[in-house]
């Protein structure tokens, strides 16, 4: 493999039912930085049916070029079609870096493409950089077991690939004056040759838990111990009209569903206020909430790592302070809601 032949930064642009989803735009923002440092083009890859018009939108978010394959066979995501299409593009145009959103389909595709073109792939990264001199992609992620980050390198294979969690990279401000080039390609696969068929897509938009859109999240960890502790936290969340979040250990303890889990293997959230109650602050949790506007941590251990990530920290016993907090907020907000009377705080 002649590494010198590989140039350019690529972003896979995922669409759902024809709509480009945010993660691709976020990655164009992150990819722009990498491409600028390496002095190469930033390219989007957009596959689907009747998606060509949306391709132009991507220039505003930083793409210089967009590779589009528009074909009925690509209407719904399937590993077999998308892997072949992307694999062909990679072999033809040879990008040096290729990033994908770490969504169900993004991860599925990236894994298949990595084997298809025989290269390295780093999963669920949260930090991207590049060593310009060596043109080496530095994709970092929390590594297993604790408070540690690791940079994964792929020295001898191209493209250097990674998946990136949604919402970790900020979505850039669009600049609608930017222009770019659309390159149309074809796919050689025919429907008759395919072995899978998407019969139905069911999206439940009214999920019971909607952590990703919540303005206020009250999250609990193992420190709240049991059902009584969890009920106490839920009560605070109720008073604050907040959504309940959780650490993985709380989910695994069976106190709430996986829908509530924040972190590397749960959701990434960016609320205006995030309460972390009895959460130690392991890196896998912190990567999922560190971009919240205001983080308030309550923990009885003054050394807890969560205090490094928080804006305000309170060393206290959750069982003592949370009920008091609920009561005081209840009183204060009652005045507010009743008629806009300024709360006495």
């Amino acid at each position, binding site marked *: 493999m002649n590494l010198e032949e590989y140039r350019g930064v690529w972003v896979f642009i995922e669409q759902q039912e024809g709509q480009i989803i945010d993660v691709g735009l976020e990655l164009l923002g992150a990819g722009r930085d990498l491409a600028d440092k390496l002095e190469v083009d930033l390219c989007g890859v957009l596959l689907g049916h009747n998606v060509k018009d949306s391709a132009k939108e991507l220039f505003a978010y930083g793409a210089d070029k967009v590779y589009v394959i528009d074909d009925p066979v690509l209407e719904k995501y399937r590993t077999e079609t998308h892997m072949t299409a992307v694999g062909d593009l990679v072999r033809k145009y040879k990008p040096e870096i290729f990033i994908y959103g770490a969504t*169900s389909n993004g991860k599925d595709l990236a894994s298949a493409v990595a084997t298809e073109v025989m290269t390295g792939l780093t999963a669920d990264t949260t930090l991207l950089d590049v060593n310009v001199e060596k043109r080496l992609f530095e994709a970092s992620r929390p590594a297993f077991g604790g408070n540690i980050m690791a940079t994964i390198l792929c020295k001898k294979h191209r493209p250097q690939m990674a998946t990136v969690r949604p919402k970790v990279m900020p979505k850039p401000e669009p600049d609608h004056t930017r222009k770019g080039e659309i390159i149309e390609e074809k796919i050689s696969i025919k429907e008759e040759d395919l072995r899978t068929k998407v019969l139905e897509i069911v999206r439940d*938009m009214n999920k019971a838990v909607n952590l990703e859109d919540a303005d*206020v999240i009250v999250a609990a960890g193992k420190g709240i111990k049991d059902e009584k502790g969890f009920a106490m936290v839920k009560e605070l969340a109720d008073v604050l009209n907040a959504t309940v979040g959780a650490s993985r250990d709380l989910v695994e303890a069976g106190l709430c569903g996986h829908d509530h889990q924040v972190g590397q293997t749960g959701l990434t959230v960016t609320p205006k206020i995030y309460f972390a109650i009895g959460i130690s602050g392991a890196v896998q949790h912190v990567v999922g909430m560190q971009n919240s506007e205001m983080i308030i941590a309550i923990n009885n251990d003054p050394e807890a790592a969560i205090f490094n990530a928080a804006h305000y920290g309170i060393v206290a016993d959750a069982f003592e302070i949370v009920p008091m907090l609920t009561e005081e907020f209840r009183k204060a907000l009652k005045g507010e809601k009743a008629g806009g009377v300024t709360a006495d705080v």
Partner: protein
Amino acid sequence: MNILVCIKQVPDTKIIKVNPKTNTLDRSSAPTILNPYDAHAVEEAVRLRKEHGGKIIVLSMGPPQARLAIRKCIEIGADEGYLISDRRFAGADTLATSYALFKAIEKLKEEEGIELVLCGKHAIDGDTGQTGPGIARRMGIPPLTNVIKVEEVDLDKKLMKVRRKIENGYELIQTSLPCLLTIEKEMNEVSYSPLPNMMRAARYEPIVWTVDDLNDVDIKQLGLKGSPTIVGKMWPPEKSSGAEMIEGSTKEQVEKLLSVTYEKRELFGVKGGEKS
């Protein structure tokens, strides 16, 4: 329908600790377990065998201790276990892992015929979820990741319908057999093992293969040598300036907290996401 399940022994990451001085993992501190998603995969295989017959073979790559994880699968109900274990496999990333497992599957396929391959959604140590799709690509069969339900199996037509979890919902997919599924927790509950299974598992010795037992292996694609990705550096995550600590008696702490959130109090009026 013969089913092959790839299973991995992992450190119980809930217990493993990092040495704060050296930033390395203290592996000796962690007991090992069967990767929880793989347990769900074996359980599903047991369920499918009940309906469609056939044999359940589990396959693992790992050090000799991985026998324990295989025994656990026998307990859940697997018929046979194979362990590929050799220093030359060591240090593999997902590309090299999928190659080694694929080579073992090829050999097993010659002996038994395999209609379905199951993997866990991901392994809780590496947490990549890349191995399953890699194996499927190498075998040339469709991968279906994040499966939460097998809706229908038609062995005559060699078709299967499954539900795949996607953002905010699921999709119903029809696939031809053989195929590979990666299994989510929602798939099933891993039930308590019946006593005869436990007794069989306690004495069970998996068949162990080294690289030399596999056919036409390209050594360059195995282990560390066959792994395109390497760990560059490890470091503790950036410490921000740290929190402003709210001190005082609990009562004072509560009062101060109310005042720091005072400016944002309108947020407490409506529940997020339910924008009026």
